[in-house]
């Protein structure tokens, strides 16, 4: 039933590689902004219980004595940043568990637990990939933003810029320049990771090649490597162009 000629295999693999590309581009488009959102969340300084710090009971004397238990608790709760805590918890879970496992979770849990099965396998894969990559991207963004010298913010502030202007007119471009190299790494990894989607039966290229190998035809499996190589070559060229575009100045 499977046509083992070179042309037939190539066409078949190429068609299924379309699934990898679809997953790649959709993940990229969605995870880049979502990552920024998570990054802002994890840097949020919002402290809803800040008023507790102002209570007399929260006052800690500077006299070297051990502070009272209530004061310590009030200070801890007053300093609590819920948005940052939630975002960092999410990032910790997503980065601390295998993407493979996350694919299973997204695919099976809605159906098993909430009786709302995800209709298409591609949607499930996309959700898992977007969340996973947004978590990684958010940490790269955060590293970039936190590595900015304080002097840049201060110079912009002293010139009367609003916080939004400081970020968009002064900080953002410099951060982008800094994060292009680590982002390039992640993006190239994403190209290869798309093949993981086969574990929930997304008909991507390795899945297609496995149909041949389980029928005794092994070479298409190895042949898939060429598709990844060529595409990643193109991706690398584009990323190098982007890096060059920022090369006109030095930080």
């Amino acid at each position, binding site marked *: 039933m499977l046509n083992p000629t070179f042309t037939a295999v190539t066409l078949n693999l190429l068609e299924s590689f379309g699934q990898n590309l679809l997953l790649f581009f959709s993940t990229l488009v969605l995870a880049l902004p979502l990552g920024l959102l998570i990054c802002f969340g994890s840097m949020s300084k919002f402290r809803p219980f800040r008023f507790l710090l102002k209570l007399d009971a929260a006052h800690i004397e*500077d006299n070297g004595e051990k502070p009272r238990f209530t004061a310590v608790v009030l200070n801890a709760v007053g300093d609590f940043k819920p948005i940052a805590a939630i975002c960092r918890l999410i990032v910790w879970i997503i980065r601390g568990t295998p993407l493979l496992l996350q694919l299973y979770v997204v695919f099976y849990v809605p159906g098993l637990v909430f009786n709302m099965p995800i209709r298409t396998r591609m949607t499930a894969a996309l959700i898992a990939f977007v969340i996973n990559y947004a978590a990684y991207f958010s940490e790269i963004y955060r590293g970039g933003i936190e590595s900015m*010298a304080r*002097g*840049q913010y*201060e*110079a*912009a*502030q*002293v*010139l*009367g*810029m*609003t*916080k939004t*202007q400081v970020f968009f*007119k*002064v900080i953002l*471009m*410099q951060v982008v*320049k800094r994060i292009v190299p680590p982002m390039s790494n992640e993006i190239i990894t994403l190209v290869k990771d798309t093949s993981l989607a086969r574990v929930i039966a997304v008909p991507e290229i390795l899945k297609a090649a496995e149909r041949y190998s389980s029928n005794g035809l092994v070479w298409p499996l190895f042949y898939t490597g060429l598709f990844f190589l060529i595409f990643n070559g193109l991706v690398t060229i584009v990323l190098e162009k982007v890096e060059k575009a920022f090369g*006109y*100045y*030095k*930080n």
Partner: protein
Amino acid sequence: MLEVFDIRKSFGKTEVLKGIDFKLHDGEVLVIIGSSGSGKTTLLRSLNFLETPDEGKIIVDGETIFDASAPELSDAVKRQNRLKFGLVFQSFNLFPQYTVLRNVTLANELLCIEKERAQTGRKPSRARKAEIAYECEAKARELLCRVGLEQKMNNYPFELSGGQQQRAAIARALALSPSVLCFDEPTSALDPELTQEVLKVIRSLKDENRTMIVVTHEMEFASHVADRVIFMADGVIKEEGTPEEVFGNPKSSALKAFLAHSK
């Protein structure tokens, strides 16, 4: 006129400013000297709203722009008030992704657009924005010529020497026409030859009767440019007077030791 009353600032347990009072008349140049850690930078940062003093009051031309005992100012008011001051940093802090010219026009353009919007109640048209940009650019070019950077306007900061970068930073601060321009050791990151070109610019600003506060370790320069000198030690003003008084006739042993040291 700038009036500063009883500015106090602590970082955790360490009290860095222990009650600073001074007045500065329009067109005067105040030079602040003092050993490392005496609180000079913290004072300038407080004037520029980069630090919030724990106590004290700052008044410019009769208008209270900071009062620690009053409720905290909104960001918008704070932003308005800080424009009374300009600050030139030791490390220049130019924006690396913009040309020298853009560094000077950027903030001014944003402010002019904002002002126009507040006046007319709507966003300026594209044509009007271009006009504003043109006006800001004209002003920036003039300022850059004044600091001797007419040849470098379209270069990026990394292509400039330290002295040129600092002169660009001065032009950038001047673009917003602050009432008081502050310098925090503007030459201490520079080689001696480059120091002179920056000091020359500051001297020329004095000739234009600009009100300035200069923190510096260049005693020679300080004695020439200053109308008044403040010697800070340990978070307080130890001595204050004309350059002749402070440099020629130091009273406290701390100032004597400091001057002997910096020769």
